[in-house]
């Protein structure tokens, strides 16, 4: 007989077991996801020995000889809720035993060779180092030589910007097209700077030679702050409700909107705004006003589309962090950080470690009130109220305090008048043992019939109560037989759970020492004693004598419930603290006054003034580093990563994150550091995009390797450099850009521009900027322009538009506010209630419905509902009528000029004028003609519907 394994080449029993049992099992149940030629899930391969030795993302799959310590066995045992393999169906006990035995035997595995490579990765490996990516390089600083690239046509440029553009044009053999006609330029300037159209008079009065003063006037206007505030609100995914599952109104989000618009108006540097967004609560605040605006700024971190009802609060917490990182990454740095939650970024120099270094900062920041509530809630931070408001608030507090004192007194009085059967709170379950006297729960009764146990109404005694399901009347009884401790008179009380629909005639039969009584209870009204009991009167019972209380559903007219009975002797009543006061004379008006007081308190509480608060974040009590979450799972944690920033964009000399702080302050300093390679470039590019229609980097939200490279890289760097030098001033940059020659070029050919079509063919996307882009007006500009023309625009600057009181996340009122909101205001679109599940219909059609994530550039869809809206919606029709009423009392020709200038910013062409005149002339045949006023209104509506209104030349 051979000794097992002693002959080379002969399979040992262990290997035999492997070949016979283990290998087929692995092939059948595991290879689909863990072998060559398939997807490799979790990085684990089970098709060769080294595969399980090394293991996947979670480490080695087996410990030979120790099944209990082997991850593989844990997975197939299905005991770990988060790691069940194979996922579709648990292995049988026999199959599990095969693998357990194999591991116990040391996991002999002859598969030394690595089978062919796995299916090729969909994305070829890339160089993801910072060195390979333009946007991670330091900014090119302009020098005397590079600031103004040499051009042949030296008369053309006005600004260094124009030198950059023209140099490229000349090199490509292009020429710049002529300047835009004045009426196109004035409309462009007004919409770009203020989001509003010029009036007909402003169109006429415009002098292109004196652009500067007009630009200065527009920059100083409130409308500028509103327009550019909207751009900022877009990238900060501003909204006034959480949307998603159970949408909750953000009652104080308007404060963030006001903060943004005011900051634009007051020229707060953009780097400071970013710092305030990330760490406003941690920045020094010299004045109360500073403190208020800085706290309000941190709402940025709280405004996301959070699913507050997510039941796994660990998941919720990491989801919020992910949303915060994704938003700040995209908006301020043009990076898609979210990718690194589960794996190192496939294109950009961002690793999973970087992600969790940043996540640690936000995990050390408190964004939710707590992590236990069924429906979670953001943090409301109290704001300093200021002296006048403080006085009013204190006045309100005093009023409330006095009402509450009176309520307390009257409640105490009522309590004294009502002998209580127990000291326990009504409305909550109570144990029989906690109540005075002799208490028999329904569980102690002799039950006949089909009673059904229930706990729906919570003011029961014992484990619950019974109800008769309103069926089988006359078949259900319950008999309580008290064992009387001492002969004497007892107050007999019955407990039941009241509700409308309960029987009003529940029969109770009492057998006592002196005879029998037949009584009846009305269970549709609350029991008068403590909300639990009704007293049936005092009866004598003898110790060891016969006596019972029987309740039945015979002849009843509704549901009968049964909870407990209570027998109170005189002694019991005296010992109950409230019982002693039973002699207090009844004050019949007290209950009415109590009710009145409660209503009054509620009403005062719900009326302004309110103590001002803002949504925001604060430091967590215990800042801590965060472990890597393998594949993004909260239940599969890897090594802990110290809090920090993206390693590929580290800046020397930055202070370290102190152990006792979250690191948000340092994050804010890092992100706005002049040497940060991304932030200033991204910001300058966004501003350029809003003025020119496309960014110098066209993928405005993506400065990574999968985004586009800049069309004019040096120009972008120089602008970013100057922007930093100018103190991150939005207005200075906007002023500079709109006064360039490049900005003021024509977007459509005027007769006799020979180079146009050839250049159009050579550079159809206008990457060289040889002409201006013809752009679409966004939803806000369209709506505000319509309201301007109609004269209906409400120009109230700042302030809330929706009044939402304190939010109880568990109340449906929170959703009702949003779902049944009627949009009626005519304020600028930036103030329109920004609910995430319900938008102004106009916004739904014109690409402003989805405010769940940062919007770098509005989408530009052409969809049929837009046309239907312009043709048929009452808003358009009504505003057209209002505009028609504003027409100057002048000859038709002048009225048409006024109309065209107001709506399209130009006079009508001859052909347009002919058609309009035709339309205004009533038809000579057919049904009754419309009135002249109606025809003018229809003409206005038609102009609103035309493409020229929707585009900006």
């Amino acid at each position, binding site marked *: 007989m051979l000794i097992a394994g002693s002959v080379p080449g002969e399979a040992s029993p262990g290997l035999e077991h492997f070949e016979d049992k283990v290998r087929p099992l692995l092939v059948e149940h595991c290879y689909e996801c863990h072998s060559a030629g398939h997807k490799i899930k979790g990085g684990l391969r089970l098709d060769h020995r080294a595969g399980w030795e090394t293991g996947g993302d979670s480490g080695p799959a087996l410990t030979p000889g120790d099944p209990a310590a082997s991850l593989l066995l844990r997975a197939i045992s299905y005991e770990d809720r988060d790691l069940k393999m194979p*996922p579709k*169906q648990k292995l049988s006990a026999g199959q599990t035993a095969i693998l357990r035995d194999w591991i116990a035997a040391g996991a002999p595995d002859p598969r030394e060779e690595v089978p062919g490579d796995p299916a090729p990765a969909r994305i070829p490996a890339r160089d993801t180092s910072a060195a390979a990516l333009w946007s991670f390089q330091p900014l090119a600083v302009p020098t005397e030589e590079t600031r103004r690239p040499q051009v042949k046509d030296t008369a053309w440029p006005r600004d260094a910007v124009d030198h950059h553009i023209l140099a490229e044009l000349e090199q490509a053999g292009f020429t710049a097209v002529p300047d835009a006609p004045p009426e196109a330029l004035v409309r462009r300037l007004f919409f770009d700077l203020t989001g509003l159209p010029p009036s007909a008079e402003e169109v006429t009065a415009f002098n292109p030679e004196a652009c500067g003063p007009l630009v200065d006037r527009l920059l100083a206007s409130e409308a500028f702050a509103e327009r550019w505030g909207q751009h900022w609100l877009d990238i900060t995914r501003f909204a006034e409700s959480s*949307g*998603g*599952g*159970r*949408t909750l109104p953000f009652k104080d989000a308007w404060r963030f909107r006001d903060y943004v618009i005011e900051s634009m108006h007051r020229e707060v540097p953009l780097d400071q705004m970013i710092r305030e967004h990330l760490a406003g609560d941690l920045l020094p605040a010299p004045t109360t006003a500073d403190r208020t605006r800085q706290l309000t700024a941190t709402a940025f971190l709280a405004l996301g*589309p959070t*699913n507050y009802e*997510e*039941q796994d609060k660990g*998941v919720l917490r990491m*989801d919020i962090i992910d949303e915060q990182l994704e938003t700040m990454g995209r908006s301020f740095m043009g990076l*898609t950080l979210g*990718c690194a939650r589960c794996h190192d970024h496939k294109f*950009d120099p961002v690793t999973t470690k970087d992600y969790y270094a940043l996540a640690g900062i936000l995990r050390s920041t408190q964004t939710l009130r707590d992590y236990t509530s069924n429906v979670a809630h953001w943090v409301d931070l109290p704001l300093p109220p200021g002296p006048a408001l403080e006085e009013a608030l204190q006045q309100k507090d005093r009023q409330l305090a006095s009402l509450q004192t009176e309520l307390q007194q009257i409640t105490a009085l009522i309590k004294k008048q009502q002998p209580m059967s127990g000291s326990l709170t009504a409305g909550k379950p109570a144990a029989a043992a906690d109540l005075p006297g002799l208490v028999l729960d329904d569980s102690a009764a002799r039950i006949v019939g089909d009673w059904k146990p*229930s*706990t*729906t109404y919570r003011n029961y005694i014992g484990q619950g109560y019974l109800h008769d399901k309103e069926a089988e009347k006359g078949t259900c009884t319950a008999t309580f037989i008290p064992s009387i401790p001492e002969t004497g008179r007892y107050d007999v009380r019955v407990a039941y759970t009241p509700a409308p629909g309960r029987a009003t005639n529940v029969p109770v039969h009492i057998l006592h020492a002196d005879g029998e009584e037949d009584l009846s209870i009305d269970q549709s009204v609350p029991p008068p004693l403590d909300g639990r009991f009704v007293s049936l009167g005092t009866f004598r019972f003898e110790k060891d004598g016969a006596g019972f209380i029987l309740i039945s559903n015979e002849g009843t007219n509704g549901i009968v419930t049964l909870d407990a009975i209570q027998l109170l002797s005189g002694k019991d009543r005296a010992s109950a603290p409230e019982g002693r006061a039973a002699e207090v004379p009844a004050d019949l008006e007290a209950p009415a006054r109590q009710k009145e007081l409660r209503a009054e308190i509620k009403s005062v509480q719900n009326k302004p003034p309110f103590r001002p608060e803002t949504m925001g974040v604060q430091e967590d009590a215990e800042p801590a580093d965060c472990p890597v979450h393998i594949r993004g799972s909260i239940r599969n944690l890897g090594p802990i990563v110290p809090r920090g920033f993206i390693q590929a964009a580290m800046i020397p000399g930055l202070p370290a994150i102190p152990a006792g702080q979250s690191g948000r302050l340092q994050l804010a300093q890092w992100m706005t550091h002049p040497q940060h390679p991304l932030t200033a470039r991204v910001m300058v590019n966004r501003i350029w995009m809003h003025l020119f229609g*496309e960014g110098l980097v066209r*993928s405005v*939200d993506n400065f990574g*390797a*999968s985004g586009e490279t800049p069309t004019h890289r040096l120009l972008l760097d120089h602008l970013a450099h100057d922007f930093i030098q100018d103190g991150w001033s939005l207005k200075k940059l906007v002023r500079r850009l709109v006064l360039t020659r490049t900005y003021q070029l024509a*977007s459509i*050919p005027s007769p006799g521009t020979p180079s*146009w*079509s050839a250049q159009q063919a050579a550079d159809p*996307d206008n990457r060289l900027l040889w002409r201006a882009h*013809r752009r679409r007006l966004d939803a806000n500009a369209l709506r505000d322009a319509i309201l301007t023309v109609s004269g209906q625009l409400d120009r109230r600057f700042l302030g809330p538009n929706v009044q939402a009181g304190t939010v109880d996340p568990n109340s*449906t009122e929170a*959703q009702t506010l949003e*779902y049944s909101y009627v949009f009626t205001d005519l304020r600028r679109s930036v103030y329109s209630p920004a609910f995430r*599940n*319900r938008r102004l*219909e106009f916004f739904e059609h014109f690409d402003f*419905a989805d405010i*769940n*994530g940062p919007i770098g550039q509005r*989408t*530009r*869809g*052409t*969809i*049929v509902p837009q*046309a*239907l*809206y312009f*043709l*048929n*919606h009452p808003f358009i029709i009504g505003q057209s009528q209002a505009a028609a009423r504003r027409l100057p009392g002048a000859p038709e020709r002048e009225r048409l000029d006024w109309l065209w200038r107001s709506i399209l910013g130009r006079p009508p062409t001859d052909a*347009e004028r002919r*058609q309009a005149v035709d*339309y205004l002339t009533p*038809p000579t045949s057919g*049904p009754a003609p*419309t009135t002249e006023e109606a025809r003018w209104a*229809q003409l206005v509506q038609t102009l609103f519907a*035309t*493409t020229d209104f929707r585009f900006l030349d």
Partner: protein
Amino acid sequence: MTTRRQLLKTTACGFGSLALAAMCQNQAAGQPLFLRPGHVPARAKRVIFLFMAGGISQVDSFDYKPRLAKENGNKRSFDDARSVAKTGKGAEQRVMQSLWEFRQRGQSGQWASELFPHLAGLMDELCVVKGMHTEGVAHGPATLFLHTGTTNFIRPSMGSWISYGLGTENDNLPSFVSISPSLSNGGPRNYSTAFLPPVFQGTPLGRTGQPAAEATIRNLNNQLLSSGDKNRQFGLLRGLHQEQLHRVAGGGHQEAVEAVINSYELAWRLQANAPDVLDLAGESAATQSLYGIGQKPTDNFGRQCLMARRLAESGVRYIQVNYTDNSNNPAWDQHGNMPQHKNHAMAVDQPVAGLLQDLKQRGLLEDTLVWFGSEFGRTPYAQDNGTGRDHNPLGFTQWLAGAGVKAGFSYGETDEFGHLAIAGKIHMHDLHATILHLLGLDHERLTFRHAGRDFRLTDVHGHVVKEILT
């Protein structure tokens, strides 16, 4: 006259150059709504999804578990999903038997309770999947997962993905319609495009709470104008547009302008055609009564279902019919009162059965996939020992019928209490993959590049469930 192909092409190109570029990268044709072939042979041309919001109880409807009656009232420990999510542990629960009696039905002998008497008579048509499981323990997350494949991220809805993948079959109607959608539990996100181009957005017909008889496409009519005045006004618009097109000629802007002009032409035709499609008056009395129209409990949902059939006939690709309301605990959410299930069943049973029969007799069931289900199921035990059942995403039942799926067939099972899916498990990602497959789309190839990444409805998951396909 322009052909549909030309029309769609010009409409398509009305996107801004970025969006257009994005689309051209993703689609050979670069024409968003242009009808195009899928990746694999299609078994179904269209889907009618009957969404039962709130969570139908599987153990009271199609998943027969005799053990529940035997153990009725017993306390046992269960891995309750809500409890696990909140505490990491299961909890002791009181077993609650089905409130409705089960019987085997039809030739196939499939089990069905008396909760849905009409559907019980059609079990030979249904492909019942009993091993469903999904993500999200609360309505919001689970409803979003059902529609968009994620509990929390902002992603396109399934109908948008399908429109994006296949384009439209009809020039004059939207390709994706949601009848009487709710504002709650995700609201518009359940039919929106997220980062897909806006043209793939679902078109809501009416809204929940509004009678289905009034459900229509918004802004379909200007009631202030006579048809003659409408014609005149539209004539003026056409004339001004010709002039404006001429004004920008040669500038490279024609496509964008023509796209807007064509959107008006499409709107003009939609105004003329849609009212006919949505008008049920032309349906025979027999058909109306088949759907339960005219009877109180079934009238509203019956109208929604009949409208769905008419849209299906007209070539709408993805039609969602919603049985829901605007509350946080919609329709089938019987936490405290299971008998209420019966009221909801009475409202949908006959209309859904009528829809199946009607589709079948018209031959439409051949190439229409009907899908019936909730965002999750319910627990086989009583919530808080009361008279209702809590949410159960870990094991539940949905059914499919029609194009490409086995009829009179059951697949998958839950444990003997009907709580956890244990065999033939189908994750919601798998069901999404399977439905895309039936429509001819490979869920791994139906991708869209956004923010530097290729996105899919099924993220990195999903398997086609071949076992249920014919």
